[in-house]
């Protein structure tokens, strides 16, 4: 087996939640995960022993190129404000803006990874009036550019790899890093927002346990109802790119399994949906955001047909918070 690759992790304008999510990793757990991925963590702000001057000397060596840097993970948005100074985040102990450190270290790294939607595109930190002029490493919302610029390539040749999500699933991180360490991730393995296709060519809708309700447009009306969350409660699962309902979170969970809408947190600009997060905007009762790849007229036609055909069981269970009509027990053999 080859030598492990050195990984440096930095945090900027985010909440640290992607690291916290990474701590939920199982099979293997976090400590084993880095080993299994072929990585050596040279510093992480939550996990390492080194503090203060020990870290500063490490960063100095990396910046001067005296110590090679294989992988650079950045968590959190990059804060360019106020007025382009980056003073909304000075890396403590250095009196130097974090954006300056990242600009300086990124070209030294063989691969640069944005962990979470903030680091990828700006995310929630860029919401509202974007008071800190936050952006992603190589995107500003949907637009290529960001802190490092659209032409940036790490020394290994790849653009920034965006592991989007708010937060990320621990496996997305572990397995992307493992693929990079194995040299098994090429630019063609990234989708148009530079997310690894292996996780993001799925939709949150896939494997959603509310799918039977969706088929018949048997919709939840209130929080905690069992029905489909798309028609009234803001769910974007049919359009959101992620494998949340086939991979699952914290053992058994996902947003829709938790009883609330998918808010498409893996997408750039999810933080500004243009309507309340838990409402579905509609025109004449038809949701504006329809499933990916589905012609609108067909959707409307099928929806009205399936609504008319909704079985009593689904119609009543959809607006209850527990099963009120169980599936009928029935002989299934054909005789």
């Amino acid at each position: 087996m080859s030598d492990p690759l050195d990984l440096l992790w930095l945090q900027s304008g985010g909440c640290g939640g992607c690291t916290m999510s990474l701590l939920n990793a199982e099979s293997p757990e976090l400590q084993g995960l880095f080993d299994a991925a072929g990585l050596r963590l040279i510093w992480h702000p939550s996990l390492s022993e080194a503090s203060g001057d020990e870290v500063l000397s490490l960063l100095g060596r990396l910046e001067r190129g005296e110590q090679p840097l294989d992988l650079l993970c950045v968590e959190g948005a990059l804060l360019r404000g106020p007025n382009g100074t980056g003073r909304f985040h000075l890396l403590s102990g250095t009196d130097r803006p974090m954006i300056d450190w990242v600009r300086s270290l990124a070209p030294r790294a063989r691969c640069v990874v944005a962990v979470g939607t903030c680091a990828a595109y700006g995310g929630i930190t860029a919401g509202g009036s974007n008071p800190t002029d936050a952006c992603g490493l190589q995107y500003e919302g949907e637009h290529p550019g960001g802190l490092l610029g659209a032409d940036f390539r790490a020394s290994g040749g790849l653009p920034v790899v965006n592991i989007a999500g708010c937060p990320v699933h621990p496996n997305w991180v572990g397995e992307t890093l493992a693929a990079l360490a194995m040299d098994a991730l090429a630019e063609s393995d990234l989708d148009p927002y530079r997310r690894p296709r292996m996780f993001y060519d799925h939709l949150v809708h896939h494997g959603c346990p509310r799918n039977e309700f969706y088929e018949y447009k048997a919709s939840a009306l209130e929080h905690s109802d069992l029905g489909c969350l798309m028609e009234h409660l803001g769910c974007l699962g049919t359009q959101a790119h992620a494998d949340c309902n086939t991979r699952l979170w914290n053992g058994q969970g996902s947003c829709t399994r938790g009883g609330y809408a998918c808010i498409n947190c893996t997408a750039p600009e999810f933080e500004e949906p243009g309507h309340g997060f838990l409402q579905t905007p509609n025109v004449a009762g038809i949701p504006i955001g329809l499933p990916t790849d589905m012609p609108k007229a067909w959707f409307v036609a099928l929806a009205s047909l399936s609504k008319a055909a909704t079985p009593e069981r689904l119609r009543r269970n959809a607006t209850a918070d527990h099963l009120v009509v169980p599936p009928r027990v029935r002989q299934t053999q054909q005789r």
Partner: protein
Amino acid sequence: MGRLVVGPFNRVEGDLEVRLDVADGQVREARVVSPLYRGFEQILQGKDPFDALVIVPRICGICSVSQSVAAASALARAQGVLMPPNGELAVNLILACENLADHLTHFYLFFMPDFAREVYADAPWFPPLAERFRAGTGSAAQEFTAARARLQHLMGFLAGKWPHSLSLQPGGSTRAVQPQERMRLLMILAGFRRFLEAHTFGDRLEAIAALPDRQALAEWRVRAPSATGDLRRFLEVADALGLDRLGRATDRFMSYGAFPLGDAPLFRRGLWSGGPLDLNLDAITEDLSHSWMLGGPEPLHPSAGTTLPLAEKEGAYTWCKAPRLDGQVVEVGALARQLVDGQPLVRDLVAHSGGNVANRVIARLVESARLLIAMEAWVRELRPGDPFCASAVLPDEALGVGLVEAARGSLGHWLRVRNGRILNYQIVAPTTWNFSPRDRQGVPGPLEQALVGAPVREGERTPVSVQHIVRSFDPCMVCTVH
């Protein structure tokens, strides 16, 4: 007199810098700098009030649920909606799970690894402790991380995921527990009880929660060999290093009270300064004199507060505001919470040696035992089939306040709605209290006071005593400024 600038200060959540004036081998003065500002209170302005439920948990990845619960209860107050009993139980379970996981994450991953530093290599207690707690490779961290990940399955069931759930709503929880799931939840908690009893305490949780005083703790400690449980290991090193004489702050403690259960909370609300005092919430103000914030001449109550960043300001040294209660500095956290609630061991510890590094850590572990016992009872009280969530409309003009206890202390959200949108949203987080800068009277915040007198060894640039004191508060810097 020498000047030390300590940073990046890791194994705290978020970015922290500590500036120290050192003379004669001791810290003379400390200034605590929060170097990151993100502007959540500005981001929230003008939003649909319910969008706060998406935005505020993302203030912090480690106190995510606490932020959600504070927002949900501020909205609930504004709506005048009450949770059904199942909703209250589910929300309590989710918040208690976060606090419990955070307490143990702090102990195993953030705090204890400092005793595995080479600076202690000559101490007789060092070899076993270093093997157990060394950052990254220690046996304790691996066992704990696995147990923690399994405990978080409770979040998978009740909250969809952790962090950043939307299950926490003003009227309760979006996730109604089904009969078979209630049993599963009990099994998950039983698994974590086994970890705590086998590894953390070396004893039954009930025995830890019932320890009546210092004497009993001392007797309990010697009743089994020192390797029987990580609490005993900590007590041994705390004794050897005199951690009960390190990091004393103001000894004025506040708790908003935690985990409502019908009329009475699990942990009482109040103020403590040598004895119990009434907590007057109207007496909370935020002083901006040493913060990079624009503000008027007088500190304001958070319901009328503002957040206008000002990067160039004479005399300012941090993005953190300085919350004060009746003009005075207070400390918040598990120690404050257990003290105010009247947990007898914690009362006795504080009566003897005040708030300090050892007592903060002991209080967190005692609270952990109490939390798991309470969680088991709450799961048994869940009634599948009964409602978990109530709904109500939000008036176009409304005020709300949400007060919760996060793992690391008192968290408040103050919300003002006008024309159906958020007009003002102010957040005062636990570490805003604990790591606040000086106020206009020049009075330093709790950590700034706690660091005075900390020993600095010859040649130390990141003094280990300072690290113990800072981490004993379990700071969350991303909440602090938000």
